[in-house]
């Protein structure tokens, strides 16, 4: 019996030894082939990186060329006067004042509408909503809304805000419309950044007896607000360039006065009349100048285009910088 076992052991040892030698031999034989294979794969890597770089460059260079072209064409108009003049029939006296003020006021309302609603909705969906078919349905709809063409929002707003609620063709209507437009972006950004928080943080908080609201207010919002802020800024940058929905709800083209000031020196100090004022925005002013016969107006249009791109870049840049800064301070 013992003898048999020993024999068997010897046999298996021999077998292993044999296999090792043959493997070694095989490897030695195939070393060149393997090296060739690695070279081939590395070459494929290289080829792909080239293709990727070209793809990136096509997009970047096109935008860059366009941007440089706009700056060159509009270079004569980059001065303070361009920002402090109202539109005019004389191209050299025509400015952006009513357009940028309109854009800024609308952005403010858009922010006030989209951020509380979007963040609250995102928090609810992630933290409070029961996971059932209904919340699935909402989830699908939210992602869907992010892809709806902006003109649809314009038509909705025309029916709902302008005529339904009687808000008219006003700054308030435009702000609410763009707020709705970027709402899905804010909701999605909120949810994404909440999901990036490790479950352990939540569980640890619950474990020491925190309520749901305490967890949300002290931990979830605290850790996710960098991501939320990024989403908000990117959404706002999109809203700034939107033209179709704003035209649909009745933006003006010539408006040579500013809405009444929101702050006054007499009580009650705050004044909401500006909300019902007519308005125009930067992209509409640009479009109008572009469609004029006189070439001098095309210079103004180019300058406006460059300004819109710069502001958008600045906003997106801020978003990236903020995300980087805030992420750096968070360590789990």
């Amino acid at each position, binding site marked *: 019996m013992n003898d048999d076992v020993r024999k068997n052991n010897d046999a298996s040892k021999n077998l292993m030894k044999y296999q090792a030698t043959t493997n070694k031999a095989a490897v030695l034989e195939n070393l060149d082939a393997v090296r060739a294979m690695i070279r081939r794969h590395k070459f494929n890597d290289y080829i792909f990186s080239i293709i990727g770089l070209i793809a990136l460059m096509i997009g970047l260079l096109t935008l860059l060329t366009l941007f440089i072209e706009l700056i060159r064409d509009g270079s004569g108009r980059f001065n303070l006067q361009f920002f402090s003049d109202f539109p005019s029939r004389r191209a050299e006296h025509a400015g952006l004042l009513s357009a940028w003020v309109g854009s800024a006021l609308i952005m403010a309302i858009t922010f*006030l509408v989209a951020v509380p609603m979007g963040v609250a909705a995102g928090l609810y969906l992630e933290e409070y909503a029961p996971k059932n078919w209904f919340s699935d349905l909402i989830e699908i709809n939210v992602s869907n809304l992010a892809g709806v063409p902006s003109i649809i929002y314009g038509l909705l707003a025309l029916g709902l805000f302008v005529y339904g609620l009687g808000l008219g063709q006003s700054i308030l209507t435009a702000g609410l419309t763009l707020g709705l437009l970027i709402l899905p972006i804010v909701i999605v950004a909120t949810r994404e950044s909440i999901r990036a928080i490790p479950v352990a943080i939540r569980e640890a908080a619950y474990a020491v007896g925190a309520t749901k609201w305490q967890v949300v207010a002290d931990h979830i919002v605290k850790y996710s607000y960098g991501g939320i802020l990024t989403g908000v800024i990117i959404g706002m940058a999109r809203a700034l360039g939107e033209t179709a929905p704003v035209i649909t709800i009745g933006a003006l083209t010539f408006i040579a006065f500013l809405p009444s000031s929101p702050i006054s020196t007499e009580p009650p100090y705050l004044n909401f009349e500006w909300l019902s004022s007519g308005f125009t925005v930067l992209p509409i002013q640009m479009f109008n100048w*572009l469609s004029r016969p006189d070439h001098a107006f095309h210079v103004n249009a180019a300058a406006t285009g460059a300004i819109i791109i710069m502001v958008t870049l600045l906003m997106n840049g801020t978003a990236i910088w903020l995300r980087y800064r805030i992420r750096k301070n*968070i360590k789990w």
Partner: protein
Amino acid sequence: MHSKLVATKFVKTLGMATFVAMTFSGAPVQAAEKIIKIDGSSTVFPITEAVAEDFQKEKKIKVTVGISGTGGGFKKFCRGETDISEASRPILTKEMEACKEAGIQYIELPIAYDALTVVVSTKNNFVKSLTVDELKKMWEPSAQGKIKTWNQVNAAWPAAPLKLFGAGSDSGTFDYFTEAINGKAKSSRGDFTASEDDNVLVQGVSGDANALGYFGYAYFEENQGKLKAVPIIAKAGAPAVSPSPETVKNGTYQPLSRPLFIYVNATAAAFKPEVKAFIDYYLANAPKLVKEVKYIPLPSNEYSAVTAHWKALKPGTGFGGVPEVGVKIEELLKRIK
């Protein structure tokens, strides 16, 4: 610690933002100030813009101008949302009915001329003039898919492809051109490059020796280096006439010269002094300002007739809902009783 502080602040801001947003939605949405509201044709826009700019500076009364197009402008006008509607063609039957239903009367005022200009590239050396019949052959609905080369229109021209550029179907320019050439507004072949933006048409025609397009005179005037205006022969035996301020004013450039209009809400004209002041200012300054924005002013006797018509506050249209080609303004105003 710092991060927590910021976070708390963020939550607080959120709460405040919601509160402010709620306050806003409850705010009364009523404009207290007098604002003259104008909307309509983008062709007439530069004239009204010039008038509005000077009027606002001098009289300190606020004016806003939109560009919803002639049709879009009438929709708002007949809902009573605007005081004045600009139009590059007369009001149509459908729009008259909408206004009537809403109880809105209007005063029709021609304020300038425009010459629809048929253009080819300066590279085109075979088109010297065009008859209305030839234009019809190119543009009528039955030409769609059939008339594809220049020699199909006139045997003397080469067998080069015919590339057409025209106004988009929402514009008054399209309505007027189709009425003048094809005999029926909006009836046109559909297989041409259409754009509401005339600069797109300028680009398209100027680069191609085989292209032909039409748009307002101002766009031709600004691009004379790249484009040639084709002289038009109204009917057999008539001379070929090029568009120019003179040929439009003396009525020889036919059938493509057209009047541009503003329509004033009759109630606003009677009861809103600021609207009355604006129209007075408009008619008094039109000869100078129309020229400045490169449109063609009416002759002075016609401006006097229009001003008299305005002073009499006679509502109605001289067209009866059908755009009519080549009608004299003085005769037009006499039709409105």
